[in-house]
């Protein structure tokens, strides 16, 4: 049985809230009930059936055929099962996920994976600002699971990250890993200015250089740490390239000494 499919008929006339279209939220509903679910974010009513052609299938694997940057909160709160989007999505995709797999073949807007607690969020294209980060007023960003970005990420990726793995194959914007509490952030391309800005704990790997390091990170020397081996093995299951970057001698910078200072930035030292 193939996946439960929503085929986008046309670009939506307003931003839409797709947080209700997860396997657990749709379980037990009839096709008519699903088609009638409201997804509008303005006063103009809009239901699932107005925007998508629906093809019944296995609810554990939901497919959105056709993406659009106005499709917000795709996979938000996902706890189990899989969602795949053939195209782009809007803001806060996968926000608050606790399990399962959300795959976005295109790009994602701001706050993708915000507050992620479990599961895997894969973004094939670029991600917007504050990837995995908290919304205003929240005390922590992602606290578990993993996010993998095939392209580039905007500024402040991993802001206030507490746990989990955030892997960016391409470049990252300024302040990557800002205010990190813990967790692991790996950047395959070039990092923007001041990675790890005000981080307390956590690990950042810069595999492709950096625009500007903060002066509050101090060089500890070159090491081949056991912890890096453990990280390499785990990261390799999601990104062979970034996993390999954890192997071999790494220069360790400790910081941010303007904050707690127990974080680290690794830079390849071959």
């Amino acid at each position, binding site marked *: 049985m193939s996946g439960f499919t929503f085929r986008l008929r046309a670009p939506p006339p307003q931003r839409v809230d797709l947080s209700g279209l997860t396997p657990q939220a749709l379980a037990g509903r009839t096709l008519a009930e699903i088609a009638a679910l409201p997804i509008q974010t303005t006063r103009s009513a809009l239901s699932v059936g107005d925007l998508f052609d629906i093809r019944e299938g296995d609810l554990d694997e939901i497919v959105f055929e056709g993406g659009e940057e106005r499709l917000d909160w795709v996979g938000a709160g996902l706890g189990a099962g899989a969602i795949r989007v053939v195209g782009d999505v809007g803001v806060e995709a996968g926000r608050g996920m606790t399990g399962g797999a959300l795959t976005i073949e295109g790009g994602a807007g701001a706050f993708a994976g915000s507050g992620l607690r479990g599961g895997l969020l894969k973004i094939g294209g670029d991600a917007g600002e504050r990837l995995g980060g908290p919304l205003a007023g929240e005390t922590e960003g992602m606290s578990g699971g993993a996010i993998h970005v095939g392209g580039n990420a905007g500024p402040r990726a991993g802001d206030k990250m507490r*746990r*989990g793995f955030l892997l960016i194959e391409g470049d990252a914007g300024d302040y990557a890993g800002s205010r990190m509490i*813990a967790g*692991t952030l790996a950047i395959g391309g070039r990092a923007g200015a001041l990675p790890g800005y005000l981080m307390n*704990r956590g*690990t950042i790997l810069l595999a492709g250089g950096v625009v500007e390091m903060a002066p509050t990170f101090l060089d500890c020397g070159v*090491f081949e*740490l*056991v*912890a890096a*081996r*453990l*990280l390499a*093995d*785990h990261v390799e299951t999601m990104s062979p390239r970034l996993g390999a970057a954890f192997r071999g001698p790494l220069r360790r910078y400790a910081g941010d000494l303007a904050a707690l200072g*127990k974080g680290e930035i690794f830079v390849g030292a071959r």
Partner: protein
Amino acid sequence: MSELTANGVAIDDTFAEAFDMRGTALVITADSRKWALQAAVTMTGFATSVIACGCEAGMDRELGPHETPDGRPGVRVLMFATSTAELQKQLQNRVGQCVLTSPGSACYAGLAAGEDKLKLGAAIRYFADGWQIAKKVGERRYWRLPVMDGEFVCESTTPMTKRAVGGGNLLIMGATPQTTLAATEAAVEAMRAVPDAIMPFPGGIVRSGSKVGSKYKGAIASTNHLYCPTLKGAVDSEIGPEIACVLEIVIDGLTSEAVAAAMRAGLKAIADLGPERGALRVGAGNYGGKLGKHHYRLKELMP
């Protein structure tokens, strides 16, 4: 005793009596096999008997780089104690004093699951004086402790099993100390290939088997005089004139099946060596079956 024999070696119609224990396993790694072994040897030193050592511990087997969490050479170590609290105390002290201190070492849980968990890195971490860092990788949580050669990585907890068994044993009796030792060494060698079981005494062998109690107040164990060849005639000896030496192998296992498998392997190795070059007779120690829950009948384990 009935006249059971295996390849000419007499097997007593008796049983080994063993006890419930708490058990755990660790994986110790280092940059080289030499230093992984050194850490394991040091940690399992003075761990022959719970009577005075607090725990019984030994090396289960060496691990290749492909078998360890960090891809370095390693050793799997088993530890047993009579209570959860004592096992926790011994684990913390031994890892803290013997593994943490060993150059390049790291320490991981060596059991996939158990009825309970013991603190490993979660207890040792305070050595880092506030500089310790927790790192969760997949489902496993590690502590990283800055030390003078870099970092000591230690998994936060290790599972503990309540199904462990301690005190499986064989009494190997021979015509000379040399042939008896040869048979016992062959048995230990064969038993080492059995997973999840250890022989905690020196080289796996006990030459001073003990009985419960003593004529002296305060001593909880004393020499097993019934098996001492120099006391033949002076006591109601369990050994005949043909026996000049008795050696014992004590076995602890994470499961009762592991203890039985080790005893079976040991009996086979002794029988294979035969009475000319090895042992004349094999027995086992018990307390009449009233103290230990686990009974291992030799006739059910003999080849």
